[in-house]
């Protein structure tokens, strides 16, 4: 039991690493596609269904998070640090939910077909309005930058704890099972 208590539950670790890979790929595809003539279409065709997949996963993940028992913070973290860690977790979950929704919304407002796979496509969630599209398109870029900086801050903080403070913070989230120390 103690071994489990030191780590996030297996389901949470699974979603964490799966979504980390998806979101990083998504951010990379996003910056590359808006700057590319030759690869634009190929990248957009991945970007749209992958975004919807992230939306589905973040909903499942949030529900899973609600019903999971979390390991305690390492003793090395001050109460302010814990507050920041908690706030950044809420920020990341919120961004992962809002960003694909804004993407879906902006395509709806522009009346682009939102093709998932083959002839399977999503219904529009907003009325046809190019003004609305323009605003959401800007928001999509701003949120993408915010998501990228939130990822860098999260990544940097984990590296700091693991390499400098050396409080085994990362072992709580590694995909494999660790033994309690």
């Amino acid at each position, binding site marked *: 039991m103690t071994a489990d208590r030191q780590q996030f539950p297996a389901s949470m670790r699974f979603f964490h690493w799966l979504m980390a890979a998806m979101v990083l790929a998504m*951010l*990379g595809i996003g*910056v*590359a*596609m*808006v*700057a*590319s*003539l*030759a*690869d*634009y*279409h*190929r990248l*957009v065709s991945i970007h749209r269904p992958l975004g919807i997949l992230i939306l589905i996963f973040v909903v499942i993940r949030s529900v899973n998070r609600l019903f999971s028992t979390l390991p305690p913070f390492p003793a090395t973290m001050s109460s302010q640090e814990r507050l920041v860690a908690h706030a950044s977790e809420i920020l990341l979950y919120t961004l992962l939910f809002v960003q694909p929704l804004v993407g879906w919304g902006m395509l709806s407002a*522009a*009346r*682009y*077909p939102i093709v998932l796979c*083959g*002839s399977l*496509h999503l219904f529009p969630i907003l009325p*046809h*309005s*190019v*003004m609305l*599209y*323009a*605003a959401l*398109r*800007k928001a999509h870029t701003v949120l993408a930058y915010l998501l*990228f900086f939130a990822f*860098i801050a999260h*990544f*940097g903080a984990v*590296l*700091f704890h693991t*390499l*400098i403070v*050396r409080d085994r913070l990362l072992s709580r989230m590694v995909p494999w099972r660790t033994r309690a120390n």
Partner: protein
Amino acid sequence: MRLTGSSTLLRLAGIGVVILCVVGAFLYLGGWFSPHELRPARFVDGFEQANGIHSGFRRNHAKGVGVRGFFDSNGQGTRLSKAVVFRSGRVPVIGRFSFGGGDPNVTDAPDAVRGLGLQFSLPDGEEWRTAMINLPVFPFNTPQAFYDNLVASQPDPNTHKPDPQKMAAFVAGHPEFLQAIKIIQSHPVSSGFDNSAFYGLNAFRFVDAEGTSTPVRWMVVPVQPFAPVSASGTPLGDKNYLFDALIASIHQHPLQWHLIVTVGQPGDRTDDASIMWPDGREQVDLGTLTLDSIESEETSPARDINFDPLVLPVGIAPSDDPLLSARSAVYSQSFTRRAGEKKEPSAIAPSDVRK
């Protein structure tokens, strides 16, 4: 086991390097390290430099009118493509006639490039969009050539005319350009929009129910009889005389075109929009396009549609033509820029399109 001061510094530096690498990788993907490469934003900047920014209008094909109608498929296309649009039956169509160029108030001219954008709404919710022009081939076969020509043909600020040296340099570097112009000039221009043929420009692929993929090019051929451009010249005083003739014509009777696909043979190039396929290729009539109502940009849904040529239903796929992805990217960039702008009145006003 506390870290010594120097090893802490070393590790901090290591963290810094790792983060810089991640940020650098994203900057690389976003093209920050190759500023001279042609990108969608720079392409649209080129149109804006050539024509100025006209609030709310397309950056190219700015002057236009919206039309509506339907496509009656005769079922002949199902042999080549499983697209629902080719099964026998009728689907609604929204379209837009336009002139090439970014000036929404340009005076109509018979030799200006005419455009026809179409959106077919399929019964299963899919869409097929195509943006066609009245040239049988495209004068450029790469996005770079199109852009270079756009830059070379910009008027010199002193002479107000394109620099002949720049154009000569462009032509010298692009033998396909003159060959395409020869083909274009061998096709006489019709008197108006209503008796123009429009060509899909790029090759695409039709995919049938078995998954067999066939290279095709499509065009719409007018039922309205061909008439050459009037020899008496253009009427004075009416800047919109070609659009006005289209409005009068569509009010008289619905306008019709046959949707014809040319079926490519193995070896026919699908990646070069500047050449024609050899004579004698099989042509299949897929059905009749009827356009029976016309609206100004102010009321037409066509104004707010991006006629992105890669909005395709299952059964129609892109070819390897590099222009296709570039068109999709540049249209999207133009659409995004104009979407948020105030919509200025169009040259063809709502009162002009009434009966």
